[in-house]
């Protein structure tokens, strides 16, 4: 406004101070929440975290020993899950990003499905795993191959892994799509100008560059797989097994499931408490390591990208 004062007041705008404070406090609060959880778990779980804990089986009614079977089961589950989820997820992302016409009905249907798959409650996945994999597929396999004996028609490692694979599919798809879109269009054009087919460009140029992003997706999926419990409640997890799973149709122990049962159904809460905290700590360390490596991979990928674009 013509003639308005250039020095309205000596104080900084109150609004700025208030907004900065309010949002800053909110941020701090979130960090504090994280810190409190971590500190509590580390404080109570660290004493029990010895090498023996990681390598021995539980004993004395879950008051002593270790949780090696749960670690083994978690790893087995996660490996199988990744083998199933990666090809399907990467393929879906490639299709969506490279082949599909954005406005086509098929594309929109696939996108809606992916978006909604990410939002399905985890217990519904568990029920699906029970109804489809265990009973339908497993039961069918039993009738066809085992003459009615219950081999696959019951909770099993393979069914839990496949259920988890569907659950983590969106994670892989999203991460892969992001990786694909980070590949510069110039490089694609160069490849095409040299006479490569679309497939060749994807296979020889785009995909190799997208590998770090795909790895990020896989790591994040693994992180979900190690911690989700609801989907495996009825599809294969067990609280105490005398032996390790050695076939696809065996049941397995899992870290998250172990925490759940120990926390809610332990006959002697105080006695099992140390083991429980230590298990949670292992689970958290695992999650942290996975997340940290995903972040590392992503940041190295971004740095590499910015360098190559000068």
């Amino acid at each position, binding site marked *: *406004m*013509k*003639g*308005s*004062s*250039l*020095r*309205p*007041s*000596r104080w900084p*705008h109150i609004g700025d101070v208030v907004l900065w404070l309010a949002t800053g406090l909110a941020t701090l609060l979130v960090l504090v929440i994280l810190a409190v959880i971590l500190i509590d778990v580390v404080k109570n779980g660290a004493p029990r975290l010895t090498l023996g804990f990681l390598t021995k089986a539980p004993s004395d009614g879950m008051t002593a020993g270790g949780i090696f079977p749960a670690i083994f089961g978690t790893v087995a589950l996660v490996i199988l899950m990744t083998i199933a989820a990666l090809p399907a997820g990467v393929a879906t992302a490639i299709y969506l990003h490279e082949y599909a016409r954005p406005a086509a009905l098929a594309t929109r249907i696939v996108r809606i499905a992916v978006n909604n798959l990410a939002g399905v409650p985890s217990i519904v996945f568990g029920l699906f795993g029970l109804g489809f994999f265990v009973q339908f597929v497993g039961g069918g396999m039993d009738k066809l191959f085992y003459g009615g004996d219950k081999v696959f028609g019951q909770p099993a490692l393979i069914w839990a892994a496949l259920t988890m694979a569907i659950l983590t599919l969106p994670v892989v798809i999203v991460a892969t799509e992001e990786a694909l879109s980070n590949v510069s269009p110039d490089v694609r054009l160069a490849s095409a100008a040299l006479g490569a087919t679309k497939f060749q460009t994807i296979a020889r140029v785009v995909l190799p560059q997208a590998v770090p992003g795909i790895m990020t997706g896989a790591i994040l999926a693994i992180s979900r797989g190690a911690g989700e419990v609801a989907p495996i409640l009825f599809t294969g997890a067990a609280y105490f097994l005398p032996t390790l799973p050695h076939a696809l149709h065996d049941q397995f122990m899992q870290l998250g499931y172990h925490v759940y049962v120990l926390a809610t159904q332990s006959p002697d809460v105080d006695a099992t408490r140390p083991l429980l905290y230590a298990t949670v700590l292992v689970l958290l360390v695992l999650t942290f390591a996975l997340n940290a490596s995903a972040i590392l991979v992503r940041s190295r990928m971004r740095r590499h990208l910015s360098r190559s674009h000068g």
Partner: protein
Amino acid sequence: MATLPDDSATGSLAVRQLSVYYGEKKAMGPVTMTIPGKRVTALIGPSGCGKSTFLRSLNRMNELIPDCRVEGAVKLDDESIYGPGVDAVAVRRRIGMVFQRSNPFPKSIYDNVAYGLRLGGMNDRSELGGRVERALAHAALWEEVKDRLHESALGLSGGQQQRLCIARALAVEPDVILMDEPASALDPIATAHIEELIHELASDYTVVIVTHNMQQAARVSHNTAFFYMGDLIEFDTTQVIFTKPRQSRTEDYITGRFG
């Protein structure tokens, strides 16, 4: 040092020894000149000569860039813009800016123009309506948009959006309007509209316009300043600059020997 035979009409900017630094590197200056009020002053020069940096230091927009430091003084009439206790926000209410790429908010046309007024606390609907209409008329846009004031501003053409941005800046009735290559992203017809507009604005506002188009500077401005490599080389009436420049570098630039 350059002054011009003009009265001290309101809205003059007195620049004294103004220098701008990015970190340790000096981007521009020292520059000393007096931009006369209620006239159009054009800043010309080759790319990277510091004219945009100079422009942005006239309304303290350089402060939005980290590591940017300004030395020297700028006075709007008799008030120092950079003095102690002077609020940059208040400065920008008196010295407005229009950018190279039009940047209307994703709001309605009406809300765009009313934005600055609402910031100042104006809430009365009839008052706002009147000011919005006046600003749009001043920017030669009223007739085209009066029936769709509440539609999104992003639906306008490039030239219309730029005029909207001008209207938005005019609505708060500043003393000075700074324009950073306002027509460079527009087609020739839209450019002609903007140039007409600039000419009319001079009767009420001080206009400082950065342009890389010399013909535009010649058409539109009363005074012209020639910048080169961060220094002010020559400042005079447009007539003199384009017909009898005193510095050889000015003449070289005008005649197209470089830049």
